[in-house]
């Protein structure tokens, strides 16, 4: 079985650091969640992340046990997690600008 790496027990994503994951692959975890197994719903390139459980829009995406951003849409267990469905919460000049416009 292919494996992804999970840094911290509370993480809801794992990282493909051994080999790419293909749609339909059964994926186990090493690191902190060797108990967990998911089926890949998408192609996960080397170095990219897979959702280990369903993550609802607005939920926090966790790696290293800390927030790496917010889910910008519902993400299903086994889906690819990346910039298309995770929003950063830091350094967002675009949002600062929008707020300033709203305040006017």
């Amino acid at each position: 079985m292919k494996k992804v790496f999970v840094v911290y027990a509370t993480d809801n994503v794992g990282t493909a650091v051994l080999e790419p994951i293909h749609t339909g692959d059964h994926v186990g975890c090493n690191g902190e969640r060797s108990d967990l197994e998911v089926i890949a719903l998408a192609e996960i390139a080397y170095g990219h992340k897979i959702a280990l459980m369903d993550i609802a829009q607005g939920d926090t995406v966790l790696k290293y046990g800390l927030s790496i951003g917010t889910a910008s849409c519902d993400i299903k267990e086994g889906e690819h997690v990346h910039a298309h469905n995770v929003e950063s919460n830091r350094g967002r000049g675009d949002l600062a600008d929008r707020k300033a416009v709203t305040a006017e």
Partner: protein
Amino acid sequence: MSEFLGYVRPNGDVGIRNHLLILSGTVYANGVCERVADTIHGAVPITHANGRCQVAPDLRVTRRFLAGSAMNPNVGAVVIVDHFREEGMTAEDLADDIAPTGKPIATVNIRGDGGFISAVDKATRYAQDFARQISLDAREAAPMSKILFGTECGTSDTTSGLASNPANGLAGEILIAQGGRMLMAECTEWMGCENWLTDQAASPAVAQAILAGVQHMEARALASGEDIRGSQPTGDNMAGGLSTIEEKSMGAVKKIGDSPIVEYLEIAEAPTKTEPGNYLMYGPGMGAESISSMAAAGCQVLTFCTGGGHTSNHPIMPTIKVTGNRQSFELMRDTVDVDVSGVFYDEITLAEAGQIVYDEVERVCNGYLTKSEALRDNNSFAIHRVGPSI
């Protein structure tokens, strides 16, 4: 406590190289500096785009970068060239900054010395004398506690935060246990894990300074009016699987280990303390500016952790590239020094990876050439700007 063989300077600093530096005071002296360095054995030029029409706070930072680079213990002697009469930073001003180190310094002024050809003549004669003078210096035993070990990451991917960076943090701990110091900059990449760093701060004042530094850098990003994604994380970070700056930061701060953070420094500022431990410095994630600020602060050696592979090498501070991505190591075998990807394939433990990185650092401190030094690919001198050209 182990020792290394280095060049003991008059002020007690210990270099791991004995470079003759040809330092350009302004952009308009670059041509002379390059010509001189081409002629003289072992001479290394530092050239740049600054020194003219800068606002005062920006010029002060430029001066710290230039003087600091020459003060670095890896420099045995320096020839400084400027082109006419700069306001606020002449070759003599730089020489005054460098003088307390006790190393040989000469200055040349292109207009005052009669133009390009005469300036090249004069600077080349100084450089020839210095090159021969410092060739008499011999390496002597010095404690590893004399090492200020800089660390950087660039072209990071998800392997960086899981292998090369934590291995590097463990290597830093091995040095710190022997009384050494480790320096990390790039405060853009502390965004999202400030709490990890403030927990390590040796005092509340250091913790406050860390938070203020990140806030200042984030304000720069916010003032741009745009999402920083694309520049932080960079396009190659994102191709490598890093989705957000927060995720990049968590991997990035793993470059230092768990020892206390002793002092917080402004960009290109030398530590004022000698206590073993971690030191943090304000600065951007831009690799060349960041590693140049660490060389200016006095780092003799630097590890550059890279997922995708990186070509960065500082002209006077040996730059050891470390990767956790086996494919990058294969592609960049002539450029990347250390491969710790074995941690993913159960070939080595993370602790063993840390020892491998430390051993390479110690070898380089004793004179072993990095791959990029052997190639003379000295591409990474750059000066951080804090104001506009006017």
